[in-house]
Each structure stands twice: as C-alpha cells, then as structure tokens.
C-alpha cells in the first residue's frame, strides 16, 4: 500500500513556542484520518505544515514519497497539489460558485472546464446554483462548494480544518456522511482535523489522538476506543471509571467490585498493582441487598439510565458511573456490580 502522506519527527515553532514536538504519522492512499485533540493542541499547525503554510523546524514531510518540507527542501504551497477545506469555507466572495470551483483549474479547454464544473456540481449536488454568489448560499451549500473547489483541483491530498463546526447540528451528521461518501467515491486521501470525537468516529477511517504536540495513539477508531494506550486517550474518547486492580493471573484481576475476567489475556504480569478502566456501559447492575454498592444518584436519559454507585472498599469509597437499561433502581438502593464480557484495560496507578 502506498503512503500518501508521511511525517517523520516533525517539529514546529509558533511565536517562540514549540507546537509540534516530534510527530510521526503515515496516511495510506484513500484513507481518511482524523486528527483529534483539544483546541490549541497543534492540530491546525500540523495541517498547515503539511500544506506548506507553516514552517517546520525539524523533521520531514513527504507527500507521495516526495519530500516537501525538511531536509533543506521546501516546496511552496502552490506546488504541493493539496486541497484544503476551512471552517469558514473560505469561498471567494467576489466569485460565483462556478468561478470558485474552477479557481484552481488551469490548462483546460473551455469544454473540459465545463465538464469539470458539471461533474463537481453533480458530485456535491449543487446543480443549478453555478451562477450564485457565496453569500446567497446556506452554510452547508457553501461547504459543499468549497469541497467541490478543492476536488476540482484534483489534489493528491485533502486537508480539512474543522469543516463541520459551523454547520447546524441537525444536518451535520448527514453532511458528514455525504462528504465521506464523496471522498470514498473518488478515493481521496484526507486529513481531517476536529476536536469532536463524534465527528471523528463518523467521518474518519483512522484516528490520531493529539496531545501537546505529539500523537499519543494512532489507529482504527474501534481499537482506540476499546484499547486506549493511555488514560488521556481513554478519557478523550469517552468517560469511564477507574478502580484499583491487582492482577491475579493471565485473565483476571481483583477489584473493589470483585474479581473481573478479561476476554483476552492480560499483558501485565501476576501481582501487578494498577487501575482497571471500565466504561459505563461495560458495567451491569442488579438489585441486590447484599451487593457491594449503593446508588447515590440517578439520571434518566430516555433509552437508558445513568447511575452513580458508591462502592465501599477497605480504605475508602469509590464512585462508579454505570449506564444501564434497568430503569427502576432508586437512590439509596443496594446493588451488585458485574462487567459485560470484554478485554480489560489496565493502567499504572
């Protein structure tokens, strides 16, 4: 499999501060990668570095095997063959939809240009709007124009900088799905920057979790969710409970809620003392007057309930968040806790 994008130990400074600190990343042809991280973590800087809009101080960036930044080389943005989609759509307000879409298209005959335009308008479902100006379009339509404009240029790589954050929540998901299918249809490689894990899950094939200038974990969304390599990744992808745990053997640990078994062998050795990470839906409740926990808070959320359960242990109490289909448990009631069968995740304390 060829790699569209290859980052090797990329460092970058912005206004005297190190924003990227030794970044490694690869992107396969046709892959959509989400760069996920909190605001200000350097995601956008990385995107701009790839586009040639931001200098790197160390390391190397390759696009389709060609070094574009680093090792004493610098290919200007306009020669990198990159498409970029912005949060504010960045449509040229003085140009019509058609002119915007064809902005980067050069060296084509009039007929070819027309064909390209029609193709793009059909792709983004904006037929008939070619003569409009950007301010006459809705936000979603504008974003589609910007996608069409980027794709009309036939980029080797598409970079998307928080492209959906200005779009109404109601249409955001359908929009994402739609654009994802467009990209897949054209087999476009793309890097997508977002701070929302939900967007990343829907839109991307792989996720790279970003924190303070480095990529903490990179892989398929499911893998990252179920097997985070750090508490940071675990927390970023959703809330969860940490309970003290001691490894008993290759498959089981002792915790305040009892002995838990893992579906897969544990990597930690016998007598390892750490914490087990349990997502709320991986726990199950049962009404049990002799159970280990007491319900302290209940929150009804429609299809399920969230309960906070107090578990008394030897030294002190732990609070555990549980998502349960069982609705009828009340505050103060004693309950038993068990886990759904899954591979356990253990962290150092």
């Amino acid at each position, binding site marked *: 499999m060829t790699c569209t994008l290859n980052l090797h130990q990329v460092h970058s400074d912005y206004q005297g501060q190190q924003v990227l600190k030794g970044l490694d990343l690869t992107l396969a042809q046709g892959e959509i990668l989400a760069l996920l991280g909190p605001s200000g973590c350097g995601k956008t800087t990385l995107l*701009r570095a790839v*586009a*040639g*809009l*931001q*200098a790197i101080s160390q390391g190397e960036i390759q696009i389709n095997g060609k070094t574009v930044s680093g090792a004493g080389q*610098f*290919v*200007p*943005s*306009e*020669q*990198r*063959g*990159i*498409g*970029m989609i*912005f*949060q*504010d759509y*960045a449509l*040229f*307000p*003085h140009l019509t939809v058609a002119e915007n879409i064809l*902005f*980067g298209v*050069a060296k084509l005959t009039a007929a070819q240009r027309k064909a390209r335009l029609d193709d793009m308008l059909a792709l983004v479902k904006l037929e008939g709007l070619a003569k409009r100006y950007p301010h006459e379009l809705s936000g979603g339509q504008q974003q589609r124009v*910007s996608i069409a*404009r*980027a794709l009309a*240029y036939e*980029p080797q790589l598409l*970079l998307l900088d928080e492209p959906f954050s200005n779009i109404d929540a109601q249409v955001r998901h359908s929009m994402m799905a739609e654009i994802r299918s467009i990209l897949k249809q054209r087999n476009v490689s793309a890097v997508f920057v977002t701070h929302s894990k939900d967007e990343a899950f829907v839109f991307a094939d792989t996720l790279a979790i970003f924190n303070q200038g480095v990529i903490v974990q990179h892989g398929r969304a499911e893998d990252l969710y179920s097997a985070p390599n750090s508490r940071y990744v675990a927390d970023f992808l959703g809330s969860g409970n940490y309970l003290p745990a001691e490894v008993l053997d290759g498959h089981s640990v002792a915790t305040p809620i009892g002995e838990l078994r893992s579906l897969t062998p544990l990597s930690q050795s016998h007598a390892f003392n750490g914490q087990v990470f349990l997502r709320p839906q991986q726990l199950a409740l049962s009404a049990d007057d002799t159970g280990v926990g007491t319900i302290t808070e209940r929150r009804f959320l429609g299809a399920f309930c969230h309960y906070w359960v107090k578990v008394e242990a030897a030294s002190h109490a732990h609070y555990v968040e549980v998502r349960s289909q069982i609705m009828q448990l009340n505050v103060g009631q004693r309950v038993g806790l068990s886990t759904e069968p899954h591979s356990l995740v253990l962290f150092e304390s």
Partner: protein
Amino acid sequence: MILGLARSWSLTGYAIAVLLVLPLFALLLQAAQPDEAVFGHLLSTVLPTYIANSLWLILWVSIGSLLLALPCAWLMARCEFIGRRYLQWALLLPLAMPAYIVAYVYTDLFDYAGPVQRSLRALFGWSSPQDYFFPDIRTLGGAACVLSLVLFPYIYLLARTAFMEQSLSLAHASRIMGCSPWQSFWRLSLPMARPALAVGVALVAMETAADFATVNYFAVPTLTTAVYDTWLGYGNLTAAAKLSAIILLVVFSLIGMERFARRKQQLFQKQSRIQASDLYRLSPVQTLLALGYCITLLVLAFVLPSGILLSYAIDYFEQSWDPIFWQLSVNSLSLALITSLVCCAVALILMFIRRVSPRSSDALPSRLASTGYALPGTVLAIGVLVPLTLLDFAINDIADWLRMTGPGLLLTGSTAALVFAFCVRFVAIAIGSVETSYKRISPSLDMVSLTLGQSPRRLLQRVHLPLLTKGLFAGALLVFIESMKELPAALLLRPIGFENLATHVFQFVSDEKLEHGALPAIVIVLVGLVPLIYLNRSLEQDSR
C-alpha cells in the same frame, strides 16, 4: 502567510519604503550642515517669537476646537431633538473649508473697511480707529479662531463616537447613586472620553502646526512661515532645514501623545451601542438652545464663508470662467489623479507584503512609509528637493558620461517632484484604507488560493485586488482630495510657472482679491465635500 515568499517581494517593499522616507533623512542631514550663522541670527532675534507663536497657536486652537466640539459631540451622541439627524453630519462640513479661505472671508468682514466695522462706525458716528476698540482679526488670536472653526470637526467626530460607545448602564448607575446628569457628564462621560479627545486634539494640533496659508495671510509669523521665508527670502536651505527640524520635534511629540492616547482608548471601548430609546429627549427650551448653538457654529464655520464665496463667484463669474480656470482644474485634477493612483499602488504592494510575508520585519516598510504624513508641506518640500536635485544631477552626469544629451531637470523641473512629495505625504491614507480592508479578508482565502496552485502574484491579482477594490477606491478618493487641497508643498515644489487650483487661489488670497479666485476656491471646497458624504454614510450606519 506565504512561507516561500520570494525575497524580491521584501526587497521591493524596502526599496519603496526607503524612497518614501528619503525626504525625512535628507531633511535631517541638511539640518545638520553648517549654515553661515543665519540660524544663529534668527535664534537671537525673531526665532523665539516664531516658536512662541507656533506653540501658542497650537495651544489656543486645541483649546478652541475642544470647546467648540464638546457640546456638539455630547448633544449628537446622547440627546434627541429636532434636526439632530441633519446636524450630526452637517457639523462635519467645515472640514471641507480650507482655513485660509475662511480667514480671508472673515478679514473681509471684520477688517476696518469691512461691513461690520463700517456699520458700527455709521451707527455710533465714529470716524477713525482711535475712536473705538475693535479686535484685530489679523492676529494670533484671529488665526486661532479661524483654525478652530475649521478643525473642530476632528474632535467632534472622535468625541461623538466615544460618547456613543460609552455604556449607558454606567451613566444610569451613576445617576442612581445620586449624580445629576451634569455631574455624571463631568465625573463619568468626560473622563472616559479623554483618550478619544486626546487623539482628536493631537490631530488638530498637527494640522495647526502644518498650517502655512492662514498664518501667512494673517502675517502671524510661525515656524512654518519662517521655514518658507528663510528658504526663499534668505535663500538659506540649511537654516530652513534647521527650523523644519524644530517643527518635526513638535509634530513627533504630538504623534507620541496621539499614540499614547490611542493605546488607552482601547481600554474604554465597548461593543454595546446606545439605542435610540436611551437618548435624552430635550425639552423645547433645551432644544432651542441646542439648535441655536449648533446652527450658529455651523453658520460661522461653513454657511457664511461658503455663502460669501458663492456671492464672490457669482459677481466675478465672467473673469473667473476662462481658459485659465480650466487649465488650473486640469492641472489639479491630473496631479491628484496620478498621486492617488501611485499611492494606491504603493499601499497595495506594501500591505500585500506585510500580509503574506513570513518575515515579521516585512511589516516595517508599510510603517516607515506612513511616517510621511507627519511632515508638514513646507518641511516636506525641503526634504524632497534636496535628494531629487542630487538625483537630477546624477542623471545628467550619467547622460554626459554616455555622451548623450542630458534630460535637464527631469525630476525637480517637472511635476514629478510634486507627485513624489504628495505621495510621501498622503500614502499613509491609502495604506490605512487598504489595511482596514485587508482586515476583512479572511486569511483562509489566502491559504485556499495558494493550495489551489496560485502563485503569490496571482493571489494578489485574483483574490486580493478584487476584494480590496472598495478600500482602494476610498483611499484613492481621500488621497485625491488631500492632493487637491495641499498648498505649501505645491507652492514650493511646483515647476516654475506651474499653477494649480490651490496655488492659484492662494495667490489671489495673498493679493487680497479672492473675489477673482472664488470659482476655483469653490471647486476646492466642493471636492472637499465628497469624503464627507462618505463619512456621513458610515455615521448613518453607526447610528443604526
């Protein structure tokens, strides 16, 4: 930001900037030369008076225009009464009046031979100047009055905005705590508006320091007239340059004050705007007083002078409506047109470099280029002539060396020197205008354009230029008008025998027969009204 921006862009920027600050350096260099004791002679005789006159004039005009402007600004920003809508822009009209025209008109009115004193004499049976006292208008005080009348709108404009931006809840709070409206004005509104007022006063003071024509006409010797006299009268350029350096000292301290005030101003600025319902409704008596004040001011500063000018023009229409008038207009218009085009081109290039360059030092050229605005016309003229003369000689030397006929005085003997000087002085306006427009263009447009394979030059052509059209046009318009009005630089730098509307009108003013030059004077005033219409539009948008 364009990372790989070619060095040639930066070099172009620096080259332009160096060219535009050349006059300043030439002037300082010239001032550092020995000058055969002329400066010493001036210093021991008249210079202290000149300096004192300049400083007193600046002080009085500042105080005068502040006092004139404050009530108007407050009334327009905080009160509602009949006619306010019209008055709020009408009060800007005096800006279109060149001060020396107002000076002439009032001298005509209030002079010994003028209608006012004549009717007083007829009324009381006085027969000679010894019989009664009448203030002489051709004095420092008279000049201060005239300049205040013409310059107060600067302060009015800034103060009005400052008052409008002040949070009304603060005023309510102070009144709940027992302050009368009057007290809350003194204790709250005025202190909060102080930075804006300081900016306005600094502007007024700078205009006063640069004024040549009014004080020349009133025969009040100040530093600006001294520069002119020393240069042309004594024929001593170095002493004139030394005097100019003193003016620059004054001007740059005023700029320092303005910068300082602007920094503070941001502290007080608020986003919320006063709503129409928050305005004080004035009682009939109050309305009458307010209207009386504003209208009187407007009549004195604009209606009366332009009315008199108009009557001159009608009376002497036959003499004024001649081919010379057309020639003058063409001269003025073409000069202004070329200047505004050059200024816009320069502003566009410098601001483009500043925007896209990855090198922070590339912001410098546009800043440097803007300093020219601080140079009063008289001072600028010296700074322009010195290097251009050298250049002229260099060109002819090269031509001689190549055994060609030299072109003669290519730069100083033509309008080139004039265009250059105007550009130095007014490019800051175009730069400011382009800068404002640039702020409205999202940086992502640049990035998109680049990633879509467009070179920096294509980015400028295809994206920035079309989007900056409005800003460029506004800038060009302002430069155009300033170039039409600029007098001292035109007087000193014009090719010998060249006249434009401003120099022509001034010639008539100093020959005491503006009547004959009223038509060109009206053209200058009318052209000066155009930016006010623009300004008015933005004011209207403000109040909505």
